[in-house]
């Protein structure tokens, strides 16, 4: 205890200076003396510092949130000591934190090829499926020089220089040294902070993109041409003795023939061609969140019922469609106005009329082939999470998609008298429906004062077993977040009212195919 401490206001100017960052050495000594063995002063000081800490964190998080919204890629938050809300993500952040902490400033200046030394860090992986990589592919791995082959999903490499590269599968990418890499094929998004200026990505045919402190996208297409587009700042693109300086918005292409030229706006779509053009939605039911889409669409288990844990499924609702149901975190839809009822008869199923039993999906009574698709008893609903599906496939949000299906009452499920149903598809963004279809026809939807969405217009005609099949074709734009399909009815007894979405699928790039068989 000392004399100054008896004066309660002695602490105040010191705390102000501390907060303002202007505390000088003799003030510091005074603060130290004031706090020494003075519990009252310590309490005031700690109150003050806790609030300082909370303000630091509060505002740095707000900035992070904003940055993240404005710039969806790269996904990793690069500011230090900022934390993801999820445990798994915290581990990613930890790996990055640890990696930077271990790098003393002295080693930062080292540049040059090295076989044994870590040149980069595998700082994030999302639904990644790896091919024959010469480098380790576990999250957080130190990367020496070597090659990464990403077959599907996405991954992020953080170079020691500070440059960050987001890879979208399929992609083949080679780490050369801490400031240099080679893109053999596929798409990367490169973010280069000021200290990593000069970061260089080489490409086939001697093409090379040299960053001048910026952000750019680079794509080596199937024909071996290298495309680069600058998002922010400036890059230099060179090939042999040709060179172009590119500013934000500009793009150029290094042709396999050895010519480097500026590209016209929109000449090249900077998107990966996925290894598949069609996603059969029922094939996702036997896959769990965390699986890659490429794997998921090639595993097909007939009669498998979707659950809320299936890959790309946000929610499955069976029964109680006579009242509003959630189809997304903030989206409630009421299907009772077009025939949604209360009773239910089990969950939907892949490639089958129902999860139990053996009814197969057929296009019509005379169809002899079993079809891909989703069978649903009346009053069942599936909400697909399009964000997750895109992420699992490494698909760009800009990739155009369509939902297509042929709907009908399943002819193999006739129980004396036949069933009748109403089939529904709704595309939603994060806030609500964008387009709703009833029996294949676009129909307006409205939002009530309580926030619940429903279809406008009269009660739709029921599809019967005699009805012609109805075709669904719904465009899904970049903001498409949820796809809802539902089967309504129950007037003929719940076990008879059974609808099918034959070949329920997402079509990418509008490359469609004819309905396939389920075998």
């Amino acid at each position, binding site marked *: 205890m000392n004399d100054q401490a008896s004066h309660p206001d002695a602490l105040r100017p010191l705390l102000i200076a501390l907060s303002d960052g202007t505390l000088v050495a003799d003030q510091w000594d005074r603060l130290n003396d004031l706090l020494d063995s003075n519990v009252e002063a*310590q309490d005031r000081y700690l109150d003050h510092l806790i609030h300082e800490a909370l303000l630091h964190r509060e505002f740095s998080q707000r900035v992070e949130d904003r940055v993240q919204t404005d710039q969806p890629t790269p996904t990793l938050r690069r500011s230090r000591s900022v934390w993801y809300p999820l445990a798994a993500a915290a581990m990613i952040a930890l790996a990055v934190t640890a990696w930077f902490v271990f790098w003393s400033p002295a080693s930062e200046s080292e540049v040059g090829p090295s076989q044994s030394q870590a040149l980069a860090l595998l700082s994030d992986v999302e639904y990644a499926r790896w091919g024959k990589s010469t480098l380790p592919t576990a999250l957080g791995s130190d990367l020496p020089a070597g090659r990464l082959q990403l077959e599907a999903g996405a991954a992020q490499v953080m170079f020691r220089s500070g440059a960050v590269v987001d890879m979208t599968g399929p992609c083949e990418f080679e780490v050369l040294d801490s400031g240099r890499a080679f893109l053999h094929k596929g798409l990367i998004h490169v973010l280069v902070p000021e200290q990593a200026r000069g970061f260089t990505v080489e490409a086939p045919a001697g093409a090379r993109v040299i960053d001048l402190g910026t952000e750019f996208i680079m794509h080596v297409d199937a024909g071996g041409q290298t495309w680069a587009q600058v998002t922010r700042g400036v890059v230099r693109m060179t090939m042999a003795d040709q060179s172009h300086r590119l500013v934000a918005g500009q793009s150029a292409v290094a042709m396999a023939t050895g010519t480097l030229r500026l590209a016209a706006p929109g000449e090249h779509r900077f998107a990966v061609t996925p290894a598949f053009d069609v996603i059969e939605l029922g094939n996702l039911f036997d896959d769990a969140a965390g699986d890659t889409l490429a794997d998921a669409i090639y595993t097909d288990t007939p009669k498998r019922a979707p659950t809320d844990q299936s890959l790309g499924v946000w929610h499955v609702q069976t029964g109680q469609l006579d009242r509003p149901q959630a189809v997304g975190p903030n989206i409630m839809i009421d299907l009772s106005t077009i025939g949604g009822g209360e009773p239910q008869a089990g969950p939907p199923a892949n490639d089958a009329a129902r999860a139990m039993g053996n009814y197969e999906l057929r296009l019509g009574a005379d169809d002899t082939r079993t079809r891909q698709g989703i069978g649903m008893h009346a009053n069942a609903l599936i909400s697909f999470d399009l964000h997750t599906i895109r992420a699992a496939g490494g698909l760009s949000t800009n990739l155009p998609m369509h939902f297509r299906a042929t709907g009908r009452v399943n002819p193999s499920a006739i129980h004396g008298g036949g069933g009748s149903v109403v089939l529904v598809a709704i595309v939603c963004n994060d806030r609500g429906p964008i387009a709703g279809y009833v029996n294949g026809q676009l129909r307006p939807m409205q939002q009530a004062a309580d926030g619940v969405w429903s279809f406008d217009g009269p009660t739709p005609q029921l599809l019967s077993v005699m009805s012609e099949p109805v075709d669904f074709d719904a465009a899904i734009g970049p903001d498409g977040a949820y796809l809802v399909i539902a089967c309504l009815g129950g007037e003929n007894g719940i076990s008879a009212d059974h609808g099918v979405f034959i070949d329920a699928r997402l079509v990418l790039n509008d490359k469609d195919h004819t309905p396939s068989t389920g075998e």
Partner: protein
Amino acid sequence: MTQEPHISAEFGLSLTRYQTSLYAYILSLVPDRNAAEDILQETNLTLWEKAQQFEAGSDFLAWATTIARYKALHARRDYARDRLQFSPAVTEQLADRMAERIAGVDTRRRALRDCLAKLPTDDQQMLAQRYHAEGSVQRLAAQTGRTASAVSQKLYRLRAILMECVRKTLAQDA
């Protein structure tokens, strides 16, 4: 699937959840933002390395602050060469005192958030400029055409309003 989890979910959740509390703890011992961030990172790293030793259901915060305290006392790195520091005795005393308060940091954070939302937009923006990054009082003064002392006074008043609001909120909830 992508990769095996290295450490338990409970550990990960605790680590994430208590980042702000740990930061507050460290900042109170080493009241320099950059140094505190660095020490927090080192603490996280050690916690992570020792994650296997963490027993589910035990007091994560007590364990973590023990490590943070050690790190704060022993942080004598390059970045600290011209940093002013409390004497070891005062640091120890503050650490003891802070240990009693740390459990309440989370509650205060929520209260502060509510209180911040009640401030006029201009005031929120001023705090954001000061606190989100390196917005020094001098720079803020230059930007707003005020004197550094006026900015300092204004910030002081805003902090006082917030602290009072937090105090009232906590008293109401108690």
